[in-house]
């Protein structure tokens, strides 16, 4: 009898665990199927055409894809130096008594939902950008900055964890040779934790590219590629968030699903690279 229960328990847990794989495959299949109409209609033009005109049944994703790339790039450029600075502060500089409260604060900042970052951005950041750079204050620049602030805590926390893996004995040896703190960080901590730091940054990149609410408020959703960063623009998640409930034709829906598929493939690729090349977990054998 216990043998039967044992078997049922083991197989039930296995089945549910395998379900995760099936759901993932299901997501890809469904998005692919729903995009078929758009793929057949536009082919590769979908990613190179920037005209997005629902009333004319003309859909090109170029503006949204470029918007995603530019806003994410901007966010990364702004967030990386600050995040690395915070990580260095938390792992090497801060007094033991400061480490915990500051570290926890940064982690709590990462827990605040992105819809709140978006709302804060709309009411408090857009006016600042409008005063400083002119225009509406809504657009790629604001989106990039709000996105940077949103990913900063996550990036800093993961980078700090990577830096903390450096064995103390290595650092102590370097200090014993007369190194300054910066010498130790530059020649010991960073080289030792390089893979982890790069992994942390790529992971943050993966998050930023799929982040929806923080940018939906401040991007503007205009399908145009403009070199002027203060002009309203759009990105893949912003288009999805704004237009999914408005789509009224099969082709419109299908194009939105193709956008979702593109976003999923991009984020899956980025996160896989981070996981498999840089953050390969070493699990101790039980």
């Amino acid at each position, binding site marked *: 009898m216990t043998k039967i229960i044992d078997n049922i328990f083991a197989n039930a847990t296995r089945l*549910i*665990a395998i379900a995760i*794989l099936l759901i993932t495959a299901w997501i890809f299949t469904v998005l692919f199927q729903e995009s078929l109409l758009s793929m057949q209609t536009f082919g590769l033009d979908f990613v190179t055409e920037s005209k997005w005109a629902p009333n004319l049944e003309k859909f090109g994703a170029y503006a949204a894809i470029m918007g995603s790339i530019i806003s994410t790039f901007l966010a990364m450029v702004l967030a990386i130096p600050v995040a690395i600075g915070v990580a260095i*502060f938390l792992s090497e500089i801060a007094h033991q008594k400061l480490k915990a409260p500051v570290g926890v604060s940064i982690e709590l*900042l990462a827990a605040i*939902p992105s*819809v709140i*970052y978006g709302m804060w951005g709309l009411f408090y950041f857009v006016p600042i950008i409008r005063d400083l750079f002119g225009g509406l204050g809504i657009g790629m620049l604001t989106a990039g900055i709000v996105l940077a602030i949103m990913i900063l805590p996550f990036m800093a926390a993961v980078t700090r964890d990577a830096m903390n893996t450096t064995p103390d004995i290595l650092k102590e040896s370097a200090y014993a040779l007369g190194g300054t703190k910066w010498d130790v960080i530059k020649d010991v901590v960073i080289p030792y934790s390089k893979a982890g730091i790069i992994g942390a940054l790529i992971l943050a990149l993966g998050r930023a590219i799929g982040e929806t609410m923080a940018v939906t408020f401040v991007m503007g959703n205009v399908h145009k590629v403009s070199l002027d960063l203060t002009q309203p623009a759009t990105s893949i998640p912003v288009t999805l968030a704004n237009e999914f409930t408005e789509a009224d034709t099969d082709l419109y829906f299908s194009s939105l699903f193709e956008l979702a598929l593109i976003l999923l493939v991009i984020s899956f690729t980025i996160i896989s690279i981070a996981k498999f090349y840089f953050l390969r977990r070493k699990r101790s054998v039980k």
Partner: protein
Amino acid sequence: MTATQKRVLINKIVMALSTLSALIGLGFLFWILFILVSNGIEAINWDIFMFEGAPPGYEESGLKQALIGQLIIVGLATLIGVPLGILAGTYLSEYGQRSKLAETIRDISDIMMSAPSIVIGAFVYAIVVIPMGHFSALAGVAALTIIMLPIILRTTDDMLHLVPSTLREAAFALGAPKYKVIIQVVYRGAKAGILTGILLGVARVAGETAPLLFTSFNDNFMSTDLFEPMASLTVTMFNYATSPYEDWQRLGWAAAFILSVFILGLNIIGRLILLTKKVK
């Protein structure tokens, strides 16, 4: 300047820059918290809990529908996601261990944990909303469950892994079958960790907005029908905040404040549980 002086100078500059970075990070934290609290306190009163959403300019306007909708959607997702996640995590840690299948599931869950949540929303739209013909609370629950599953699975896996194998061996030596060892010994040993994982998982999905935009959609009035659209704090916040009406925006801030208190509260409780566990 000698080489040493130069090194010391560069060191000082880098230390100053790092400290400045930390101050910038904390600065944003306190800025956002300050705005949440000052706008939130101003906007919060009893009416918010008593009344449903009303057209702008209406006196008796509140968030009752959003608060209850949020509890229903997040609560149901938790009820489904947590047991499934714990069981799947149990497989990884206790049965699969280092096998190829278990490692693949770990990798895929790690990736799914960071997948854009709006894409999950699109998926649920295709498999639930289209066949049903309209938005529904159930679709929102499905989306949040899918997002929660890998989080609970991975934390359970990690926490069970921390339980010393000697405990298992002792139980096995007494002749206990494996499922009993897992339920009565391993789960008990990992209780605090799993609970923290659940709290953090719930906190994560409670803030999700994007996947709800086109699954549970929104409703300005009280609804407890799972087969109909349902309001949530996050989507209501989004709609009210982007509206041009000042009293709606005020409700948006009230929603933001309540949600933040809830999420930060869960996070802090989760950390405290782990902390007190460690001290013992």
